[in-house]
């Protein structure tokens, strides 16, 4: 089976920003994403409100260039003021060509 090496971006964000961050990654060319409801603690304890629910984990498989664009944008707009963290890992994706837009 042929696999394609791609970058996986994982973003943990307070729930309030979920839809905005999905829009952000789509804007830069991600073909899709997967989101999970998670909980967590970090340096900033406080969320917008408990009614908003916990954090969200958003994962997207993208090419290296798209990854670069997404993390630049995240860094410029959200890292300072919101409870957001992100990391990159290298994965081998099956039928990976469909994720390169």
């Amino acid at each position, binding site marked *: 089976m042929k696999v394609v090496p791609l970058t996986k971006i994982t973003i943990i964000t307070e729930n309030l920003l979920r839809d905005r961050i999905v829009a952000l990654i789509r804007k830069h060319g991600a073909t899709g994403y997967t989101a999970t409801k998670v909980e967590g603690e970090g340096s900033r304890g406080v969320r*917008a409100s*408990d009614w*908003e629910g916990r954090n969200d984990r958003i994962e997207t498989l993208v090419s290296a260039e798209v990854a670069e664009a997404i993390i630049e944008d995240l860094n410029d707009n959200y890292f300072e*003021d919101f409870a957001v963290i992100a990391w990159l890992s290298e994965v081998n994706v099956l039928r990976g060509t469909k994720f390169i837009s």
Partner: protein
Amino acid sequence: MDLLVQNLISPVVLAFLLGMAARWCKSDLEIPDAIYQGLSIYLLFAIGLKGGVALSQTPMTQLIAPLGVTLALGIITPVSAFYILRSLGKLSKIDAAATAAHYGSVSAVTFLAAIEAAKVANIPTDGFLPALVAVLEVPGIIIGLMFAQQQRAGGLKEALHEVVAGKSIFLLIGGMVIGALCGADKIQAVAPLFIDPFKGVLCLFLLELGMVAARRISDIRSAGWRLVMVGCLLPLVHGLLGTFVGTLAGMTEGGAAVLGAMTGSASYIAAPAAVRIALPKASPGIYLTMALGITFPFNLAIGIPLLLAFAKFCGKFFG
């Protein structure tokens, strides 16, 4: 005093205390997220329905004065809150603006607790009160945000959409429209879900809220005595004002007291979401702790019984 105790010993208030106790003795009790959200949806929709039915039974002429004073309160209270928070609270401009948005808006749970207390004390209220909640919720947030216009990162428009299309206002108004369209007769069919078990559901909701508040209360230490004081002063000042003008607007004794409790309350559902988007640099540690950790318990324990007594007094002299 007796009224205070009578008000505190009810399933709803005790459930709140039980929730706090759960945190304190480190119980692993936890209301699943989905259940908590389910309860919120139920409560808001049910309040709306009841209010809608009441609206459909109230002649428009009786509504004008109460709606007018509520709107006025929604405009005045964020302003007074802002200046009190700046002067007495010594908050930075942006934190004062963010917190003022909370005190200008309304806490739906405080509203419910006030209704409850009036019922327990056998004081009649007005059926259209839920409509006033909807009117009071929005303007305060807008005005609060405008105080920090320069510092805003997200757009005001975006923040407004967050409030108006946010689930709490949406369900409240949606329920109200359905209640008004259907009228008492047709709502009868859904009463066994939305009317009868309402207080029981409120109990469970307050169980969770108690756990949340307990977490917040432990943040008070870091907030300092200044904010604790202001967090008790604001509901007092706004509460008395609200009750007073409610009486002038011709509302019932209980209705005026509930309007006072609403005015004195600080939103901790709609406002935080809007503020977080519009003023990300404001500190949630301040506005959430004040709204949920100080003002909310203050209103439950002291504000509401006091306002009920004050409404009786107002009713005698200005009613």
